[in-house]
């Protein structure tokens, strides 16, 4: 963080990185490969890079503490930051395809750690294609929550397979989620909302949360308010469509 004062990409007043220096393409094609490192298996994920306070050196790989929340397509990271203080003992990670956006989130978290000593040590971000590499990051049943907030809609029929919620990808999400784990989805695009709900409804390993359960869950209200995209929709008075499902054991 040296040279922060003179670095124009950081705001002088808040010490936080300025978003406009990290603008990126609005949409990436998640089916195309890029050059970023991918851990060979979940045991190869270096926790000391992401959570140095919890993992001072990289040789404690088999520590029992593991990432439990994943924010898929985390964008500028607003949700992680809200969740960080709500669940201070839970390790969480954002997965983001666009490198500029990932860099922004990284800097944002580092800055928050500096300005709030002892806090924001449980969140991190990684640049990856979640559609391909989720099994490289998480073991079977490792996650208790997965978030898909305002994912790219990919309207055209032929691009539906680029959507981050799809019948096939739900098999992988069911694999990394523990039984009882929860998948949260929200969008302002009605068609996509219907699609995500239908995919989850038809999948044998997910069941919808009841309205009471949703009300009781402190995370529910963050879905529409915590992220940059959610705030934008809210400012414009847009409607949102939510689907929240629990991972269940497959019936035999």
């Amino acid at each position, binding site marked *: 963080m040296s040279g922060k004062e003179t670095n124009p990409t950081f705001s002088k007043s808040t010490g936080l990185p300025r978003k406009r220096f990290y603008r990126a393409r609005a949409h990436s094609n998640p089916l195309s490969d890029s050059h970023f490192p991918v851990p060979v298996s979940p045991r190869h994920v270096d926790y000391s890079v992401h959570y140095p306070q919890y993992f001072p050196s990289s040789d404690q790989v088999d520590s029992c503490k593991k990432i439990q929340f994943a924010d898929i397509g985390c964008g500028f990271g607003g949700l992680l930051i809200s969740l960080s203080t709500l669940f201070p003992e839970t390790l969480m990670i954002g997965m983001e395809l666009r490198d500029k956006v990932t860099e922004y989130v990284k800097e944002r978290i580092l800055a928050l750690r500096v300005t709030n000593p002892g806090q924001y040590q449980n969140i991190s971000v990684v640049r990856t294609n979640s559609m391909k590499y989720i099994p490289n990051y998480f073991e079977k049943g490792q996650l208790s929550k997965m978030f898909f907030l305002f994912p790219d809609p990919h309207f055209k029929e032929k691009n539906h397979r680029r959507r981050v919620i799809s019948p096939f990808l*739900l098999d992988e999400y069911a*694999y990394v989620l523990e039984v009882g784990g929860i998948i949260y989805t929200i969008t302002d695009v009605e068609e996509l909302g219907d699609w995500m709900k239908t995919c989850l409804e038809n999948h044998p390993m997910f069941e919808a949360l009841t309205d009471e359960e949703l009300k009781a869950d402190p995370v529910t209200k963050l879905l529409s308010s915590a992220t940059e995209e959610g705030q934008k929709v809210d400012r414009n008075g847009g409607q949102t469509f939510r689907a929240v499902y629990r991972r269940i054991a497959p019936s035999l």
Partner: protein
Amino acid sequence: MEDTPMENGETNKDSEVAPALIAVHPTQSSVAVAVGSDLRVFDLLGGCAVSLVDDSGSSLHKDSIRAIRYGADGKLFVSAGDDKTVKIWSTESWRCITTVCSEKRVSAVAISSDGSYVCFADKFGVVWVVDVDVSDGNQASVNKKAAPLLSHYCSIITSLEFSPDGRFFVSADRDFKIRVTVFPKKPLDGAHEIQSFSLGHTEFVSCLAFVCTQECLQGFLVSGSGDSTVRLWDISSGSLLNTCDIREKAGLLESKGIEECYGAVTNLCTIPDSTLVAVAVQSLQGIILLSCDLSAQTLHVAKVVSIEGDAFIPTSLGTSSSSGLLWMVTGASNLHDSQYPCVARVKVISGFKESTPDSVEHGSIVLKDNEIPGGEKLLEKLQGRVSFDENFFLTAAEALKTSMSNLLIKKQYSTEKREFRKRTRNDKKLKQ
């Protein structure tokens, strides 16, 4: 990057070469070879070439065949490939029972242990399943519809296998991933329950096989890869049990240097009722025999069987139970500027007898052509000719290399091209 094959589903066809494939009937009553679009079967019981009967259309396969295999009980045979059809044959009549149309080109096939389902993978990484209805005997039922079973997101699937007990379905891809899925009771509704991912390979996974003995019926999975290793897995947990680096043992390290995919494992074949695994390696004239110690859960090189004289680098391997023979083929289709458009060369290694299943010390000799079951007649059918000059092998070896690169290695953009792509990206434009 790599938009081309996955997004368009089709790569530049001219550059594609299909390696020759071989499959042996489980009791060695027949042997099949595929070269290009040509499917050749020799009946070893009858001692004659088989004429295939396909009522569904005029010709058999119209483009390169990418996968052939017999079912475990030997009743069915499947062939599939670039013409986007999957043909299911009765091995009794050699009549095509069903032709299944795929939207995309087909890269791998498997037959469920009880012979009631055929699965195939397309170039988009989706695995499809068809229910094989053999009740109507040999009547051809055309254009069966396949249902999606599972998907490897946007990675080409290189190999599909059922576990010997039929419980699991294993799929491997070009992205170093091996997925183990519970094979469901109703596969037409999809296979949603993933048992494990077997992760550890650092390059494409090219082939899968199960080591299975009387004492260990559920078997252990072995996989071969472009990372020059063969790995042993416990599929129920996905744990990597052992890694065998074949490069060093095969004496490949000091030779040609760092040529791309020089030591890539191209094919694997387990010798039935033994703990031996035969391995074909890019650029190796012969095969490597690995021995698997099932109690210690280790793999080690037992022997390198080299093929003297000819530059014979096998493109595909096959065996049958208790025949004691390992069948090998080399060759390729679509060789431009070649006098061998669709030729293959078959060789056989003997010495895997039941009495000495795990001892390879004395056995394993490369048979002379006249010692091969079926003799000259078989070779004429499967190879397309009986004798070869030296050039053939050089051409075949070159073709194998090309096809491995095309099929399995990710397109590496040149630095120049990559820089260009970077510069023309919108997010960079904004800044500059």
